[in-house]
């Protein structure tokens, strides 16, 4: 697939694969015009780069841990989007490092 060069700069983490390229083809003309400017524009929008952090975290994450959440009705219902704005927010709370602290 034709992958505009600047797409690499969108995300340094693996998540950039969320089909950016698929839906992009329709606006290829624009891409040619701003390809050079794109990284600068992205930095202007925000200097923060969340993709890198995600990449680090997912590398460290243990397979299978936390999968139970994905099976809960709360999660499924929220994800389905059927509840509209009333079910628009899923808040998961815990203590950062809960458990880990006690293993030292």
């Amino acid at each position, binding site marked *: 697939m034709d992958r505009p060069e600047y*797409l690499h700069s969108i995300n340094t983490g693996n*998540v950039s*694969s*969320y*089909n*950016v390229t*698929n839906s*992009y083809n*329709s*606006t290829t003309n*624009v*891409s040619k015009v*701003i390809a050079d400017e794109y990284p*600068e*524009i*992205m930095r*202007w*929008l*925000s*200097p*923060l*780069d*969340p*993709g890198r*952090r*995600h990449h680090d*975290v*997912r590398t460290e*994450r*243990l397979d*299978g*841990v*936390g*999968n*139970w*959440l*994905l099976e*809960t009705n*709360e*999660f499924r219902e*929220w*994800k389905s*989007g059927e509840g*509209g*704005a*009333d*079910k*628009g*927010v*899923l*808040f*998961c*709370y*815990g*203590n*950062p490092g*809960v*458990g880990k602290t*006690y*293993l030292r």
Partner: protein
Amino acid sequence: MPTTIDISSLVIDSLCDGPCEGDIAVAMFYCDFRDQQQQTATDIVGAILKQLVVRGKVVEQVQTAFQKAKDEGGGRGLRLPDMVRMLTRAIATLPRVFICIDALDECLPKYQLELLGSLKGILEELPSMRIFVTGRPQVETEISRCFATSVIVPISPKRNDIERYLEKKLDMDTELEAMSPALRADILRIIPERISEVCARESIVPVHE
């Protein structure tokens, strides 16, 4: 082991790689107390927008705004309301958008409220978008201050999560001569029990089998 950050990363991956694939767009942000000063509400919304610019087909609008800022001198960044408006426009063009914010409590309080307020405005306009937030229990106050309703799930260390974590640590143990099958079995039995006790006593979060 499941820390909230693992949960965030898991949720993000499950949304990105899930069976509904193509029509889902996911944007994320990990708050970090070490970057509190840099992680302003405006820059967080900007970082979310960055991830949706191309798919949300607002490349042209963003470029125009950028050019305008440059022409007016200095190339100053967008203000929060403008950033939110641009993000709303991007989300409106996409069928299903998920925004995931990890560790909201690690943001400065004023930015937490600005961020939640911004997301609330977008959700009111686009009720099918989805927002995922993790944080310490006390963040619930901020959440319910901004959103009349929300789905709330406690993240508790499940026993098999703990066992899985321990097994991995044991498998990576470099001092094998100090380990024996009996010791290994003890570790895998006693530590999960002990964590359950501590959690129960301090009522941090319930532990389920």
